[in-house]
């Protein structure tokens, strides 16, 4: 029996609908407000919407998987957890950037907020769909909004350059993804990931093996661009540097998490049969491992030579993309979803915290050179202490969130018997100590250029505290999060929803 529009329970879509409604409402309110008036109200409404959506998504955790209109919308625990990560990231960015956007994007404050919400909506659609068309539309919604956000500081040439580079590179990667998807559709005649998997399996066994692999590798090329992993990371440093700092943190955290959800969803939903058929071990896993290793090596070594903090963080985020690709590459390991998501959560807190401190310092000194951190321990002891925790966590030193994140990924890689990638990970982690500790040395052992205090706005202070709490809690009590993640029904990601199989 075919199910129609109103036969479905649309309340499962509440988080998306809240964000959509908020974005629409804000764009109307923005029109009605006086020009040059205070836009603080918009920020609070958006924050309330993000929190509301987060609460709804959190309440749905543990519910059975549900799909609408043959998987064009699909909500399972995988989608809910990723959605919570995206919402938490966006909420913290909004909270931390109230003051910043008043200053940076004077002429586009309202637009900044609802573009951020639109990008978030795109990201949420990416997490909760098992249909190529919805996935692609969500990806483009996220990308398009990000391009505009990167170029929102119109008067600055580096912001224009960032937006321009991002559009061109993003367009190319979308073209690759689309080309790969067109092969999938051509072979299977469906856009549903699970049906596609069955039919790709048949196609694979009846002699179309090269096409199956071609479609996978074309898509992987595009995905690697979107997740900013080497050797397709060229855009990241310029875009991260040119965009306003809140936008940079959005790209580094929310965009990247959404890209990873897309990679996991498509690879596990459509190509997992290659694991039994053989080529996963021979071709796919080595390709993913090479991308991961290249990201770690290039990201960590290039970050050593940076003198601007945002470029350094960009290369560091390339390296972290490499770490996060390891669990998927070593898919046979013990804790695929748990280690990826644990790392993403840890990455969310430590990166957002570091970017918020960076934003505060950047505003005070007016530049983003490493030297602007000199003597921060005297100008703002709390910010310096928090930054130290974030950097130590990014470097992966016990007892912090980053350490356990890397530890679980290592366990996963070792149980999958991928020893060399574990070795690469350890070596590059040690390399990364040099540049993270460079910042710490700057903060504690260099005299400040002037003795002025660095004031921290209330919003930014709250974000720094939440991130600090998150980083330390994940470090001291990793078992809590791991138990929580262990209760999720990850396997529902891999198969279609039961009661609609008969369609």
């Amino acid at each position, binding site marked *: 029996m075919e199910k129609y529009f109103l036969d479905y329970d649309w309340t499962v879509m509440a988080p998306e609908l809240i964000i959509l409604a908020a974005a629409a409402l804000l764009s109307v309110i923005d029109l009605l407000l006086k020009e040059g008036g205070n836009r603080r109200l918009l920020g609070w409404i958006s924050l309330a919407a993000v929190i509301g959506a987060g609460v709804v998504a959190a309440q749905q955790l543990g519910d059975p998987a549900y799909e609408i209109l043959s998987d*064009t919308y699909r909500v399972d625990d995988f989608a809910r957890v990723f959605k919570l990560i995206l919402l938490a990231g966006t909420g913290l960015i909004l909270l931390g950037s109230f003051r910043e956007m008043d200053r940076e994007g004077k002429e586009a404050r309202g637009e900044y907020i609802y*573009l951020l919400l639109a990008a978030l909506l*795109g990201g949420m659609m990416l997490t909760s769909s098992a249909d190529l068309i919805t996935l692609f*539309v969500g990806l483009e919604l996220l990308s398009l*909004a990000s391009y*505009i956000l990167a170029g929102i500081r119109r008067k600055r040439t580096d912001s224009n350059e960032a937006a321009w580079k991002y559009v061109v590179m993003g367009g190319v990667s979308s073209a690759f993804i689309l080309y790969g998807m067109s092969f999938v559709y051509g072979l299977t005649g469906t856009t549903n990931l699970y049906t596609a998997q069955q039919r790709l399996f048949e196609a694979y066994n009846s002699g179309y093996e090269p*096409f199956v692999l*071609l479609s996978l590798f074309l898509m992987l090329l595009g995905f690697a661009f979107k997740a900013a992993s080497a050797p397709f990371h060229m855009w990241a440093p310029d875009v991260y540097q040119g965009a306003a700092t809140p936008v940079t943190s959005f790209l580094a955290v929310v965009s990247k998490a959404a890209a990873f959800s897309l990679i996991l969803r498509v690879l596990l939903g459509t190509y997992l049969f290659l694991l039994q058929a053989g080529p996963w071990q021979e071709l796919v896993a080595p390709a993913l491992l090479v991308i991961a290793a290249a990201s770690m090596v290039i990201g960590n070594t290039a970050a050593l030579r940076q003198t601007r903090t945002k470029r350094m963080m960009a290369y560091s985020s390339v390296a972290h993309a490499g770490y996060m690709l390891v669990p998927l590459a070593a898919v046979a390991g013990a804790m695929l979803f748990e280690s990826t998501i644990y790392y993403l959560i840890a990455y969310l807190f430590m990166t957002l915290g570091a970017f918020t401190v960076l934003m505060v310092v950047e505003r005070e000194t007016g530049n983003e050179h490493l030297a602007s951190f000199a003597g921060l321990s005297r100008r703002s002891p709390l910010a310096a202490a928090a930054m130290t925790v974030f950097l130590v966590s990014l470097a992966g030193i016990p007892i912090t969130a980053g350490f356990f994140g890397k530890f679980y990924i290592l366990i996963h890689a070792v149980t999958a018997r991928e020893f060399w990638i574990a070795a690469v990970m350890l070596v590059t982690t040690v390399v990364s100590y040099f540049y993270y500790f460079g910042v710490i040395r700057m903060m504690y052992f260099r005299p400040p250029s002037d003795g002025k205090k660095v004031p921290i706005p209330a919003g930014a202070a709250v974000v720094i505290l939440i991130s600090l709490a998150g980083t330390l809690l994940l470090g001291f009590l990793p078992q809590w999060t791991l138990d929580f993640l262990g209760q999720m029904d990850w396997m529902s990601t891999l198969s279609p929803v039961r009661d609609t199989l008969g369609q």
Partner: protein
Amino acid sequence: MIEMNGEFIAFLILSIMAIGGAVFMLNFVRVVHMVLSLAFTMLSIAGIYVLLNAEFLAAIQVLIYTGAVSILMLFGIMLTRHRDQEAEGVRPWHKFFSFVGVAAFLGILLHTLYRTPFTEETADVGRFSVDWLGETVFKQYVIPFEAVSVLLLVALVGAVILARKESKS
């Protein structure tokens, strides 16, 4: 062995036109010429769609790509500085490596496509009518359809933000 019939000759002409337009677009110096050769490519692709029995897609291709997109580009060029010529600032080895990369990619694609010929029967395309298409879009794909409308709104807002004049400066 390829059969020489009208369809094949039409395909040959159309594909040569499409590829020729693309090559000219890359090699022309003036921006207006580039847009015109791009429109030419789009039109030839519409012809290929007709050959594939996708008449609706061909009509859309002509309306949107050959018509709207090209005209929009021409307007954009005319309203801005249209006498711009591309500066030759690219390092030679850069060009060389791009060429090698693209050639390798083309080689892999062609190798894959020609190594595995399609032996299956062609599917019956008779049922792919316009009303069936409409029904699919508004029944099964209504969620991505709505998302596309948000996408267009974002693009519109973005264009306004990036292109509007300063209010006071």
